[in-house]
Structure formats: structure tokens, C-alpha cells
């Protein structure tokens, strides 16, 4: 039981370090066990964005917390992949630069699984391989399937 937990933890912690570094242009982050109680205590997240001191996730800004939380979610998915992912406005705290990085990550991950992503932000839409436009008239929703080439106009 203990061994399985440690193996899972080590794996996810490694993925987490790699993904955070990719999303933050070279920053570093760690998933830490509670030193006093490694087998039952909680998991802390400490991250060091580029040019800053290491800090716990609780002290970060909204956008920095989002990048760190998404790194954790994607680190889990790398270890135990699901066939598809559904993400509804995960980019709401992100600036345009971070949106580009997150959409790169989604684009790369979408080689192994389907991603269905709802977004209001242009920098995310343009990375998708296909777009569906939704509209509503007289209370009835409609969908327009738009190939990406069309959007590029």
C-alpha cells in the first residue's frame, strides 16, 4: 500500500516539475509530502516562477495559481490518461501570454486524447484544430461547425 502510493506520488511529482517548467518558461515547482507525516499528511505545492523566490501556492496571484493548478491536473493525466478532457473557461485568470502557453500544452496533449475546450479568449481559440460556434436565437441554441481555415480569414 505504502509502496504503491510512493510510486504514484513520485511519478506525478516528476510530471508536475516538467510541466510547470514548460508552462512558466523555466520556472521550477515541487510537490511536497508533509515531512512530519508523509503517509497521511497533505501535499504542499511550492513553485518558483522565473525571477522570483520559491513560494507556496497560497501566496501567488490568481494567474500564477492557475498555471500551478493546471500543471498538477496535467501531471495526473500524464500518469493516468483519460480518453478525453473537457475544460470550460479554465483560462479566466490568465493573461494572453499564459493562455498561449496553456493552449500549446493542450495542443501537444491532444495528440493522445480528445480535448473539448470552451473559451472566450481569442489566443486559445486560434490553437484549436476545429472550432464550433454556438449562437442563440429566440431562446434556441444553434451550432455552426467552422473549419479552422475559415476562421483564419
Amino acid at each position: 500500500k505504502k509502496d504503491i502510493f510512493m510510486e504514484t506520488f513520485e511519478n506525478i511529482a516528476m510530471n508536475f516539475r516538467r510541466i510547470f517548467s514548460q508552462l512558466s518558461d523555466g520556472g521550477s515547482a515541487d510537490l511536497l509530502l508533509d515531512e512530519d507525516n508523509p503517509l497521511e499528511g497533505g501535499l504542499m505545492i511550492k513553485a518558483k516562477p522565473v525571477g522570483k523566490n520559491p513560494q507556496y501556492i497560497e501566496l501567488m496571484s490568481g494567474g500564477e495559481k492557475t498555471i500551478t493548478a493546471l500543471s498538477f491536473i496535467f501531471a495526473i493525466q500524464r500518469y493516468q490518461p483519460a480518453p478525453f478532457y473537457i475544460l470550460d473557461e479554465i483560462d479566466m485568470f490568465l493573461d494572453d501570454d499564459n493562455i498561449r502557453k496553456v493552449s500549446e500544452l493542450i495542443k501537444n496533449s491532444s495528440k493522445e486524447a480528445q480535448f473539448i475546450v470552451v473559451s472566450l479568449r481569442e489566443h486559445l481559440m486560434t490553437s484549436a484544430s476545429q472550432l464550433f460556434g454556438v449562437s442563440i436565437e429566440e431562446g434556441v441554441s444553434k451550432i455552426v461547425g467552422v473549419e479552422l481555415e475559415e476562421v483564419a480569414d
Partner: protein
Amino acid sequence: IKISRLSLRNFKSFKRISIPIPDGFTAIVGPNGSGKSNIIDAICFVLGRSSAKSLRAERFSDLIFNGGKKGKPADKAEVTLYLDNSGMEIPSQPKEIKIYRSVDASGNSIYKLNGKRTTRSEILEILSAAKIQPDGHNIILQGDITRIIEMSPLERRAIIDEIA
């Protein structure tokens, strides 16, 4: 395994649509209130979510199309999810798996697997063979990112425990 198509009939603000879901990265875009999150609710619904609240409805009957500005309210809501099982990830099932769920005005759900009536627990069993759960970490609903950010150290650990 992957999603090949999603069909909605009288589900929330949709009358009748059938959406092919391609491989790779699909973005759903559109103005506020147009029905984007309703599509996500439809997927959670057909996968067997048991709480109306998590589908942003007071009661299950709120999921039934209310007719919009001009039409008549429908008497039931129906969603069908088509899964491409050509890789036989779920060996006991055909190459194309059809999962159907409806709900009527009194809130009763009917599940069907490949056209034949079945139970919610059979659907959940089939889906878990392909690592699909109605409330897995692979589904982040609108606003949920705040919950994930504010997760406590123990909640994070519980996720790893579940996987181990």
C-alpha cells in the same frame, strides 16, 4: 476509445442537434448565454451524473427544453453519446457504443446501451473499463478552476490516494 458524436434533443436550450466530435483539440466558442456550457452539461448528464445541481439545474426536469420564446416546452430531454471503440478498449462492447439517457417532467431517467434499456450502474461499469467517470478530474466545469486552485493539501493528497 474516443467520443465520435453527441446528439441532443430538447436538452436545455437545444432543440435537436448532432455534433461530430473530431480527434484532437476542439474549441467551443460563442457569446455569453448562447449554450456553450449546456453542451458540457449534456456530456456530464449522459455519463450518469446523479446531481441536478452539478448540471446547474434545481431539479432534473429543468433540463428539459422550455420551448424558448416561441415554442412549446418539450416533455422530455434526451442525450446520446456515440463512443468509437474500434480499438476494442472495452472488449465486451461493439465497435461503436451508443449511450443514451433521457429525463421526463417528473425527473425520471431512462438509460439505454446500444438501444436496449439498462441501468445507471451498468453504464458506469462499462465506462469505468475505459477510465471514464461522470465526475472525473478530466472534466473541469465553468468556475471549477477556482475550486482546484483553492484545494487544501489534504484534498490534493486524496486525489493521489484515489489513483494509487
